[in-house]
């Protein structure tokens, strides 16, 4: 696995066109590949390299910096338990230990049935709702040990429709195709915006300052 499907390739090209320089689309396309395959495959990185005009090694160089990109398949559900300070104060580390017992795996590994991967993570910005965890980046607030067991049961039985399989982040896409985009001029060719020019001209004719600090 796997290059982009024809539909995803079309979407990838649309995403690339939003940026003044194609390489800026590297991370968004890595997310798209992970959404397609559940992880970031080598062939996908090769395809991304072709689309943004760099080498596959450069894509890997970027992707390997970021924790969310998984270069090997992981569980369908990635459970990430926060143990940073605000959660630690209210039992985050104990929740992680409980999760390890419940799932029968240590943090950083995947259950044999391929359903769950467990990680302990840094602050996920749910500090007032400690202890907190995420399943495929969907928040679970103030999680008791019983809540956690219920969550795992629900996921096993397919009762959590709000949680898509690993790799899918936002299920709403920004609609920003060529029909809609206002400005895709490369930085070299970009001149002073028309509204700034107009206000400068108006200010000159009326003798007052204008023009956004220009």
């Amino acid at each position, binding site marked *: 696995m796997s290059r982009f499907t024809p539909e995803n390739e079309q979407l990838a090209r649309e995403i690339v066109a939003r*940026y*003044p*320089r194609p*390489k*800026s*689309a590297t*991370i968004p396309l*890595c*997310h798209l590949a992970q959404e397609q395959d559940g992880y970031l495959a080598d062939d996908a990185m090769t395809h991304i390299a072709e689309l*943004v005009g760099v080498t596959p090694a450069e894509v890997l*160089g*970027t992707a390997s*910096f*970021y*924790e*969310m*990109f998984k270069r090997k398949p992981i569980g369908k559900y990635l459970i990430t338990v926060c143990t940073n*300070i*605000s959660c*630690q*104060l*209210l*039992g985050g580390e*104990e929740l992680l230990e409980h999760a390890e017992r419940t799932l029968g795996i240590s943090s950083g590994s995947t259950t044999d049935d391929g359903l769950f991967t467990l990680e302990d*993570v*840094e*602050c996920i*910005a*749910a*500090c*007032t*709702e*400690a*202890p907190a965890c995420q399943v495929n*980046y*969907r928040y679970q607030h*103030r*999680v008791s*040990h019983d809540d956690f067991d219920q969550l795992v049961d629900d996921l096993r039985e397919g009762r959590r429709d709000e949680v898509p399989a690993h790799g899918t*982040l*936002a*299920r709403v896409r*920004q609609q*920003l195709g060529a029909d*809609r*985009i*206002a400005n895709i*001029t490369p*930085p070299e060719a*970009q*001149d002073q*915006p028309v*509204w700034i020019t107009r*206000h400068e001209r108006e*200010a000159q004719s009326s003798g007052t300052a*204008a*023009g*956004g*600090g*220009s």
Partner: protein
Amino acid sequence: MTTTGAAPGTPLIVSSRFEVLDAHTLDGYKASGSYEGYAGLRAALARSPQQVLDEVKDATVLGRGGAGFPAGTKWGFCPPGVWPRYIVVNGDESEPGTYKDRVLMERDPHQLIEGCVIAAYAIGAAQVFLYVRGEMAHAQERIAAALNEAYDANLVGRNILGTDFSVDIVLHWGAGAYIVGEETALIESLEGNRGMPRLKPPFFPAAKGLYLKPTIVNNVETLSNLPWLMNNGATAFKEFGSDASPGTRLIALSGHVNRPGVYEIPQGTTTYRDLFYDDAYGAGIRDGHELKMFIPGGASAPWFFPEQVDIPLEGRVVGAAGSMVGSGAVVVMDETTDAVRACLRIVRFFARESCGKCTPCREGTSWEEMILRRILDGQGRPSDIDALLDVADNISPGPYPVAAHPEAGLEAVPFPPRQTTICPLGPSSVAPITSAIRRYRHEFEAKITKRESIPVMAAGAGG
């Protein structure tokens, strides 16, 4: 649902729609205060870009990301006549304890989008890139949906509201790296690279930012203030807060308080005591426990202690007292907290998140973690406290900012710390170490010499 909002009778600038269930839709946004929707944008478009810039300067809108630099002044740093200019919105909220930009993005995305468009108009931006933290799937969905609505309603995109002003907002997600919240690292990431900070100078973003063009990086909360400011004016804005820090701030109050939450407070006038004990905010330390220490502004901030509770949340005052208001993250720790364990957890965070570019940080934070780990595990050596301070001194030389300790006759060392690194991540790892050792050295010593058990944190989940 997260407890949010302001105390009764106090102002609401950015949090006014937090409890409005459909405020994230354009209809909901229109119905709840913003007349016709995007009234602030209409007010801005009725003025010249320079007038909008002057209003923001006049209001002294301090950056809400952590550094507290005035937004209007930052905008003014764009070199004249150099085009294009870009705006990058920093929604990569990751500082431990910080939880406010996520609330703003999930519950009131139109307020943020409106703020982005106003800023783009004033600066003359060619494009706006809205960088949302990768782990925040819900915020990404809300913003994507809001942007689609705003484009449909001609509030973003070509010839906005029938004028000659056009700008795109491109939603961009991160992929899990704390350091990308640093503005030059954010720009590297947006260019498709590893998120490592750039050297300043020459890479001050306002002069050489995205694609080496002038770039303004503003925090989500900073921009979310703009619609209200355009509607109500700088004079009304300055009626809230103190002279040096006008307006309000969102504070995430977490840890051992009865009522943790995200609260909008008048900036500079509210004290930590108000925040911890007032029924409108924290409503006291949990279950009758006592305050042992607190983090006044995010994990990077040196700790405060009970002597400091009457300090107001104001940048200069907190800075002089040895810490920072930073990202508005206040973490309360009661007497059951093990200072060494809390210190290790924060240091471990910086060790994990070091990007590895600068040696003192890459090597130093790992050593700090290793030494603290063995102290906590009862394997500490008598020389370990000195070793810790020595490693710390290599990352941040000289006296490190710390709160006063009147009982011991020690004065405060003012913020900020010095650094041997490109960015403040490494020096931030020193904050919990010097704070904890200065005040609770006996806890470290007890673990090292007596192998003694120190109060252990309460186990079990919160209610």
